[in-house]
């Protein structure tokens, strides 16, 4: 069940308050939405609660979905808005030590990883050093496989800015890797 048309069919049933369709949609999209939220808010407990809120909003507003975007894009947009609201509220609260430790990769620092020849680990570590904006766009393109237009919808920025941000995110990653001793020959 991977077609966008299946998602539309499920949303039509959800608009009629069909709980089985809701379970099917949940089964298909919960994990990607949850992962997107974990990467944004850096807390699995908060991400789980926010993911539930996303699906509750889908339940309430399925009838208003206008099919101008894919269901995935719509859900990620809701998820991003929810996470952004939560992050604004928590902006002044420092991340607790446990949470900070949890999201610090167990792998070596980029420099150490690079010295060991573990390029993949160095890339992963440098990815985590990207700004939230850059990490977000990289996640949406590489993991969620959204198009330029879809990223534009989710993040709420013009398509030209999506391309520019992706360009700079890749450039920044290469710079971080170069600083860690991994020269990729670009830019």
């Amino acid at each position: 069940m991977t077609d966008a048309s299946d998602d539309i069919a499920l949303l039509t049933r959800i608009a009629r308050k069909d709980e089985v369709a809701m379970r099917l949609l949940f089964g298909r999209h919960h994990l990607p939405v949850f992962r997107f939220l974990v990467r944004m808010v850096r807390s699995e407990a908060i991400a789980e609660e926010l993911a539930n809120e996303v699906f509750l909003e889908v339940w309430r507003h399925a009838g208003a979905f206008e099919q101008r975007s894919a269901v995935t894009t719509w859900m990620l947009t809701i998820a991003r808005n929810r996470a952004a609201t939560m992050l604004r509220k928590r902006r002044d609260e420092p991340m607790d030590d446990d949470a900070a430790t949890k999201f610090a990769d167990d792998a070596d620092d980029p420099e150490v990883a690079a010295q060991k020849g573990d390029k993949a680990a160095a890339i992963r570590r440098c990815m985590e050093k990207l700004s939230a904006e850059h990490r977000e766009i990289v996640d949406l393109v590489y993991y969620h496989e959204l198009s330029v237009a879809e990223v534009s919808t989710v993040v709420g920025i013009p398509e030209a800015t999506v391309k520019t941000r992706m360009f700079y995110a890749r450039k920044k990653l290469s710079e971080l890797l170069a600083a860690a001793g991994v020269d990729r020959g670009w830019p």
Partner: protein
Amino acid sequence: MDENRALSEREECEALLAWYVTGRLSAADIARVDACLARHPDMRRQLGLIGEDREAVVRAHNAIVAPRRLAADQLVARLPKSRVSRLAALASTPFDLMRNFLTAPSPGAVRWVALAALAIVLGQAAVIGTLMRSGSELGYQTASGGAVNKAGTNVLVRFHASAGMDLISAELSKRGMRIVDGPKPGQLYVVEIGPPTMSDTERLAREADLRGLTGLISSVLSTSA
């Protein structure tokens, strides 16, 4: 890093390479990137770098596991309930029509409500009386431990992940069957395959019929002893 700065022609091509790799470019943009790669062969090396970056991102996501709790059950328990039930949404039997009539009363309809309510109460009394006499048992325990009311004869079905919802619904509907619950742990769905009074022979035939849908269904588990 001024995001408002217009990228050069080469830079924009380099930006598009990410979508070129994920296959999310329009035909026109693919042609544009192909032309860029032909003009700047050194740019092709970036495709490999993007592949490495993408793998790192996918690995980072895959390291985030789903919550262990039965999140779907929790969510469904939190859904605001409306007057339209799942059954009313799925079918249009005389029972459903009556339900809709009752749940949307108009001044003219109010007179009918009392009559309809009376008919339902009498009907329920007759059914309960019959069941008490026959002493039949209702329901069964699913693998997840949840009791399911036996409105019909049910089986547990696991669909292929790639099976389309439209096709599943069409095939089940063609056979007079439908999904009534799920997914249960193990991605199992409860499918009603017929009335509760179905003979063993007929039940086995219907289960076999379902097993024949090998393109859609990976397993069918009988819920009868």
